[in-house]
């Protein structure tokens, strides 16, 4: 695709972009991956601790403990987002803080805070899923496709 884009550029533009590329600060990909691994792992570790806590001290099983754990994590993220800490963690952690459920919570909560000034209906209500909306849409859609494939395989493949 990028090749396709390149073709539309004039020679002057191409020449400039090559020159510019040399000066552009590169994203530290390897370092970002390691940081994301550690931050993401740490968030999952906290999730695991919460889960164990609920199983030990309350009447939850392996199957039912998921919901209260996610709820608790989202609550913590709400506080971190509101106090302006989560975006700093994210600048360090990158995908590590974006991929877990906490990243999803942050996307929803930050939009809610941001658009509070436009009122509850048009502001918060209308913009709450500004960022998270496509996650939900394509998440549900891909789940649908996977289930379709599974059903076809079981029905006709005799698995």
């Amino acid at each position: 695709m990028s090749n396709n884009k390149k073709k539309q550029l004039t020679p002057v533009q191409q020449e400039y972009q090559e020159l510019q590329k040399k000066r552009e600060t590169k994203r530290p990909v390897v370092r970002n991956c390691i940081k994301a691994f550690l931050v993401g792992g740490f968030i999952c570790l906290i999730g695991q601790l919460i889960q164990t806590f609920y199983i030990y001290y309350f009447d939850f099983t392996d199957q039912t403990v998921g919901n209260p754990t996610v709820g608790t994590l989202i609550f913590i993220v709400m506080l971190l987002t509101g106090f302006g800490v989560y975006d700093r963690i994210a600048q360090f952690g990158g995908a590590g803080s974006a991929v877990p459920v906490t990243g999803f919570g942050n996307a929803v909560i930050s939009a809610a805070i941001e658009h509070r000034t436009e009122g509850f209906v048009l502001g918060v209500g209308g913009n709450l899923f500004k960022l998270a909306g496509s996650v939900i849409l394509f998440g549900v859609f891909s789940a649908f496709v996977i289930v379709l494939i599974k059903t076809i395989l079981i029905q006709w493949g005799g698995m």
Partner: protein
Amino acid sequence: MLVGKRTWIFENKPVIISTGTVGGPFEAEGEIADDFDLLHADLWLAQDSYEKAHKILFEEACQKALEKAEIQKEQVQFLLAGDLINQITPTSFASRTIGAPYFGLFGACSTSMEGLALGAYIVNSNGAKYILTGASSHNTAVEKQFRYPTEYGGQKPPTSQWTVTGAGAALLSNSGEGPCVTSATIGRVIDMGMTDPFNMGGAMAPAAVDTIEAHLKERNVDPSYYDLIVTGDLGKIGRDVSLDLFKKHGTPITEEQFQDCGLIIYRDGQPVLSGASGAGCSATVVYGHLLNRMKKGDFKKMLVVATGALLSPLTFQQNETIPCIAHAVSIEYGEGE
């Protein structure tokens, strides 16, 4: 007077008789905090929205400029200003308070010099006695519009820049004491096909270089004529690329002489990645820090080149490239001009 294709020489030498600069909490921790007239500890400026705070920033900058010159707002003939928010509402709303006849400008981050060039032209041709011009930006209001919600945890790449919370205004007059505006070169819109909105410096550098080289050629001066050539908000990458381009074109501009407002305003260690940006960046640095240094006698002639990226979130989402512009204005101070 027009020389060449797009350079004005102001033979009546409009004077910047006073300036006003206002900054936010992040700027208060920066390198040039002492040069601001007013610094706010609170990003909200005691308002209930960032957009209203943005409006107050510009109002205060104008009031400071008027106060320092002891001019009443009724004496101001025209106000030429702009910002980055949709339909430039913060500036228009601030102009409602100031009450002077108003031209709303949009040149993205080049608005400061667009206003100064036009203002100087009007004053030079006796179109006005007092003109107020300026530009402003508010970090969170601008981020909200151009990027993600401010508290959203998206990792910014090292090429991105930090939008300045600040406003700068200058009062121009046909007589009085202060630095003179001697010439201006109006920029063309230049598009090098860059598409990354997190690398504005790299996109804007060719526009800055084009305007600077046109200015030097049309005014028929050597780069050494200026003690300082300062760009608006190219940041680290944009500045390096510009220097490369000058070298390639054989324009003898030295590294010491070529500075960038986006690299002056903050301290090392502030998390601004590639530097500062925003319409308020060049406005506050030039009208505050640089003019102060000029009055102290650190240098006599400077060329200010404010650079702007003329994109919107919509054009980016529709896969358009980023067109850029730069306007140059020369400011000179001291005897023998």
